[in-house]
């Protein structure tokens, strides 16, 4: 769930019960049907605005929180090539956050407010970043598979109806495709390396398998559907469809390298749909509600960054004795 909307029963009820001016709504929906993009100043239903803010904001948070587990490996990257690639990659993720906060701001919520809501727990970020990056092999798994999963989600979302989000996603997907290449290169290097490297990679893969299944959100059977979000092109594919697309693209690549996945039930059915063992959705719920291995730490780091540097932002905003002495 990068920028993926999953609704609780209560939220779905509010959304479906919302009432708008019928004429404006009709014109709005006709535009979307024609494939037009909705732009910031245009009329839009309140619920459209609300769900988009929530989705883009969550996506932006995922980018900047997602930079943390990888960021800790920049100083430990094993050579120049990996080090330079990893700094650039993590920098891109921060840049994506910046771009997405700007896209969300066009809908009327400030970046500061979004960051405060992240710290208070009011708004979420992708659950996958609540797991630790224990070894260098985690960089390969994250770079290849977490980024791979994110691309599946982001390419779909880039076909949505809100102009600023789509344009941000087009650029993001372009950069992500390079991330995927560096992740894949690292992944293949470890998979075809020494026994120590291979064992590291397999161990990391075992740990990340379940969070990767969780990535696209709960099964369609257990999610609240909203025809409105589909009609408004806010949500464009079901969680299960995206998950299946991911498995179909990446499981063969993992097997090709002689690696395994820790799920005896995982196989592709005759209907082209992947079946997998129960990924423990209770764990997913626990982690998303704050009880994962790294939830507290991730938020603490963001809190440090926000609060310890408040003086910098305030000083930049309030130049109370600006250039008291002539510059030349």
């Amino acid at each position, binding site marked *: 769930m990068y920028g993926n909307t999953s609704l609780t029963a209560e939220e779905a009820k509010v959304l479906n019960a919302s009432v708008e001016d019928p004429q404006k709504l009709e014109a709005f929906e006709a535009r979307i049907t024609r494939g037009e993009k909705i732009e910031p100043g245009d009329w839009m239903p309140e619920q459209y605005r609300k769900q988009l803010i929530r989705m883009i904001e969550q996506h932006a948070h995922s980018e*900047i929180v997602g*930079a*943390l587990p990888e*960021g800790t490996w*920049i*100083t*430990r*990257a*094993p*050579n*120049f090539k*990996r*080090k*330079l690639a990893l*700094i*650039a990659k*993590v*920098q891109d993720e*921060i*840049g994506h*956050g*910046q771009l997405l*906060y700007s896209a969300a701001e066009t809908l009327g919520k400030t970046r500061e407010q979004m960051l405060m809501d992240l710290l208070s727990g009011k708004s979420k970020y992708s659950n996958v970043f609540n797991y630790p990056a224990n070894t*260098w092999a985690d960089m390969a798994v994250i770079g290849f598979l977490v980024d791979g999963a994110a691309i599946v989600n982001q390419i779909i979302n880039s076909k949505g109806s809100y102009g600023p989000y789509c344009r941000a996603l087009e650029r993001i997907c372009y950069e992500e495709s390079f991330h995927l290449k560096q992740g894949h290169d690292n992944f293949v*290097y470890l998979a075809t*390396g*020494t026994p*120590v*490297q291979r064992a*590291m990679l397999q161990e990391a893969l075992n740990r990340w398998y379940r969070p990767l299944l969780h990535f696209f959100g709960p099964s369609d059977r257990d999610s609240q559907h909203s025809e409105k979000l589909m009609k408004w092109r806010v949500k464009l594919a079901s969680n299960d469809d995206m998950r299946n697309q991911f498995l179909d693209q990446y499981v063969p690549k993992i097997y090709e390298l002689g690696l395994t996945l820790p799920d005896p039930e995982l196989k592709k059915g005759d209907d082209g749909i992947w079946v997998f063992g129960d990924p423990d959705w209770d764990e997913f719920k626990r982690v998303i509600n704050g009880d994962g291995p790294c939830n507290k730490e991730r938020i603490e*780091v963001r809190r*440090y*960054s926000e609060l*310890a*540097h408040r*003086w*910098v*932002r*305030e*000083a*930049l905003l*309030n*130049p*109370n*004795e*600006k*250039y*008291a*002495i*002539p*510059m*030349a």
Partner: protein
Amino acid sequence: MNTEAIKDLLYKMADDALVIGHRNSEWTGIGPMLEEDLAFSSMAQDKVGHSQALYQIIHTVFGEREPDVLAFQRSEKEFKCCQLVELPIGEYDFSLIRHFLFDHAEALRYEMLTTSTLMPLAQLAKKVRGEIKYHVMHADTFLKQLANGSEESKARMQASLNYAMPYALGIFEKSAFEDTLIGEGVFGGEEKLQHLWLEKVTGIVTTAGLQMPQVDEAKIIYGGRKGFHSEYLKSLLDEMTEVTRIDPSAEW
């Protein structure tokens, strides 16, 4: 040309760039605002790239090992970086002041080196000069803004400047080869560089409304250029080589 003298110069420059790049990269994800994460991360990439290019000259011109070996497999004692770059990132005010002091020295050093008789270094200097220009612009902009922002930001800038200055002067610790390098036209020498730097930095600092700290010669933190480092370099290098050491025979 005196090989030892040139290698000594190249190593200290490469080690400075690698270690400050390492430190700058630590800001990725935790900067005071997203734009500063991006800025420090960009500068880190440039610095690490500069160190790689300098190690590459040591490798190709002087037959030493490959850049990855020189960066990731030398011991603390063999490093020639100044102690300024080794210090932890601290709070943002310190990192900014260090970046300001260090990058002005870098800008002037590379400017001097554009006319070096060592051709690969002169060529590199011409390229790097263009990148450092932006590092310096970034440092100057933030220094001026924060020195004039609020009482707190001004006090922080001044305190960090006072703290960093004895270390910054250590950048210009002379090697045993100064006369040789000057005589052979490889590099104009640390004394000249320090003079240019002091003039430049003093102008910006005083214009921004801060006091230029006066540092007694005895208080300057020397030693880095001769392999005597702060307590921080060892742990920095241990961290940097953590993965490589898991399996030194492997390609990563």
